[in-house]
């Protein structure tokens, strides 16, 4: 059920420390051997620090708990699909940074779906600020609650 009243709700801010071992592990998991993730001297020379992969903010999962989430507006988590994901970057993120994330419900929409009947879309936005107070990124996530369980 779409619950528009959830729009604007926020979770509690969470801290996320950007750790080199996690960056390396993530780069390996996405099959990216780019030396900038693995060679600190090269990374410092070229970029001023060890960078993070484009989708690395997904690892915020390790830093959040149920209080960081604004809630799912009555969504049935058994029927949830990840529909869409977007990252916007405003400043570089480096290993050693401590980010603060704040997640809010950006929108709740209803749509007629294909395979699963009526769908409800939940769009959340997490804004990340670094230890200098600079806004570095926004992660925007669209979750879809299907009308019934989606079969393969």
């Amino acid at each position: 059920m779409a619950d528009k009243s959830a729009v604007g709700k926020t979770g509690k801010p969470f801290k996320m420390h950007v750790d080199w071992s996690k960056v390396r592990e993530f780069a390996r998991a996405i099959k990216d051997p780019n030396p900038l993730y693995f060679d600190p001297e090269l990374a410092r020379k070229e970029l001023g620090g060890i960078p993070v992969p484009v989708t690395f903010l997904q690892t915020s999962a390790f830093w959040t708990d149920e209080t960081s989430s604004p809630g799912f507006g009555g969504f049935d988590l058994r029927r949830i699909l990840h529909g869409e994901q977007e990252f916007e970057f405003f400043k570089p993120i480096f290993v050693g940074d401590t980010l603060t994330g704040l997640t809010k419900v950006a929108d709740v929409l209803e749509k007629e779906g294909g395979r699963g009947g009526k769908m409800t879309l939940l769009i959340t936005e997490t804004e990340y600020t670094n230890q200098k107070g600079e806004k570095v990124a926004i992660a925007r996530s669209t979750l879809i609650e299907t009308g019934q369980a989606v079969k393969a």
Partner: protein
Amino acid sequence: MAKLKFDSIKVGDEIPKIEIRGVTRPDFVRYAGASGDFVPLHYDQTFVEMAGIPTVFAQGMFTAGLLSKAVTDYVGVGNVRRFQVRFATRVWPGDVVTCTGKVTNKLEKGGEKQIEGDLIVLNQKGEPAIRGSFRAACA
């Protein structure tokens, strides 16, 4: 990493293709551990069978990660300003996935020369697993 030269890029230029010849269950397990996405649909065969799904399948963000490498190989790490993916068909163990894209626009934003492009991940049947887009800084 060296930025692309704005003047040498043309709308329609293709992003060099990345092909993964058969993604595997260990790939999904490794991504689960790396990302913290422990949804059991991606590694627990007993769980997926109970849900009526034949086998585990890739996390959408695993495949998105493969696609992101195609982008950073092209524009250089540190130059991506926006990256967006929409998930279509699922990626199964053994699937051959091809990540590619093309430049659709050249622009100036916030005093920076940038390009925009469309992205796509296809399976071996030519079905899109992901459609996406990006914006990146150039020199």
